[in-house]
């Protein structure tokens, strides 16, 4: 934006203070749109956020991007300091972990596809536990016989694992290159990429009203 350059340093400092306060006050990541709404209309929130991010880069608290949103989080290297205070998060079973990974890397994915990939039929409890964590959600229904529910990951998943987007999942490019993200064997020509986009895919229908 052009008018940014015309702003006085004092204005810019004030806008940074405002962003600082907003982000600091919230435990949840905030979208740029949310922040822009609360700042004067001529403010380039994106550029201010980058400035704030670099100002906090070496500090005990960092400004991080999560799922297209921004949040202050304690620096990773200081976890030893805070861990004693933290409640030990319950450990997921191996089955749940594997299922979570399959959902993350293959989303949108149906229960049958998860079972196909893991090579085992799955107890209902596993998906329930994952839904309970808030890390996966029912996205829609696959437009195929039986209209099975499709699953995908949530913003809370990205937040919890410190990912900006599902595109940042570890090893994703490698897996994609090896064709290991294909659900069907042998591999399709098209290489699928996981997507947690709120938009349904071409082969997905929305969930029924009472399922949401």
């Amino acid at each position: 934006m052009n008018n940014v350059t015309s702003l006085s340093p004092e204005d810019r400092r004030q806008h940074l203070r405002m962003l600082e306060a907003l982000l600091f006050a919230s435990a949840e990541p905030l979208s740029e749109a949310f922040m822009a709404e609360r700042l004067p209309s001529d403010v380039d929130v994106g550029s201010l956020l980058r400035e704030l991010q670099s100002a906090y880069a070496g500090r005990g608290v960092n400004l991080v991007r999560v799922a297209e949103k921004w949040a202050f989080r304690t620096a990773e290297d200081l976890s030893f300091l805070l861990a004693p205070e933290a409640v030990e998060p319950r450990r997921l079973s191996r089955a749940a972990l594997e299922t979570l990974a399959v959902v993350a890397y293959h989303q949108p994915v149906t229960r049958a596809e998860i079972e196909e990939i893991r090579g085992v039929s799955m107890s209902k409890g596993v998906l329930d536990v994952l839904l309970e964590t808030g890390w996966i959600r029912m996205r829609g229904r696959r437009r195929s016989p039986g209209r099975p529910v499709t699953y995908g990951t949530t913003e809370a998943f990205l937040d919890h694992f410190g990912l900006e987007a599902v595109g940042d999942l570890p090893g994703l490019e490698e897996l994609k290159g090896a064709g290991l993200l294909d659900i069907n064997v042998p591999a399709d020509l098209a290489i699928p990429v996981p997507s947690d986009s709120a938009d349904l895919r071409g082969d997905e229908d929305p969930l029924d009203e009472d399922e949401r």
Partner: protein
Amino acid sequence: MGVGEEEDAAWGAEPERSAADPTLLVDVDGFEGPLGLLLELARTQKVDLTKISILALSEQYLRFIEEARRLRLEIAADYLVMAAWLAYLKSKLLLPAGDDPEEPSAEEMAAALAFRLRRLEAMRDAAARLMNRDRLGRDVFARGMPEALDTVRRTEYEADLYELLSAYAIQRQRTCVRRVSVRQRDVWSLEEARQVLARLVGMADDWTSLQEYLVAYLARPEERATAIASTFSASLEMVREGKVELRQADAFAPLYVRRRQTPRQGDEPGADTPGKGKP
């Protein structure tokens, strides 16, 4: 102990595992499923999964299942289906390739299985890498004392000058009209006059001037005309009903009224003029 569907408890400690575990009985108790079991077996081959011998792996799996059956372990259907399929694959791998173009070749089937194993392994690695990330609430922490980002709703009233003025004009006009109607009450209605008359006639038995009766009740001279007119009309009505009698000596002479003295006999047709002309 049984080889079956994974347990319902999705939370729980991961079982300690090791590829070098001498006894696979530990794995029978695991929740991995037949593909997971195959993966475990493949790891004991200690080769790259892309170079694994599916034939050798199949034989290993079938031996494992036979051993489990010999020990009379309950084996879930998933494992038996896999065993049957692997037995079929093994026989195809050992026989020369058939000519049926519809059916996938043994090599293709083996490659598909190898792919599935690699994919499962990739997912396991991915899960491990995911869990090793700096996790919120374990390695990094959110604001401990969040301050509410609530919106305070405030009402702002709206009105414009036109509304204000018309509201004023309408109510002033309305109260004007109300005052006019108060004056209108100065006009005696027939009903009012009738009530007054009925009450007053009851006070005296003898002939009384209608004027006299009324004068006592008329505070203001300007009401006299309407009072006389209404009372007269009312009195005629009451005469017709046989309740009072009227008398007048001459035209414009005072009009006298009294309560009807003699009850009427039955329904006389001429009942509406009984008072008239009785001196």
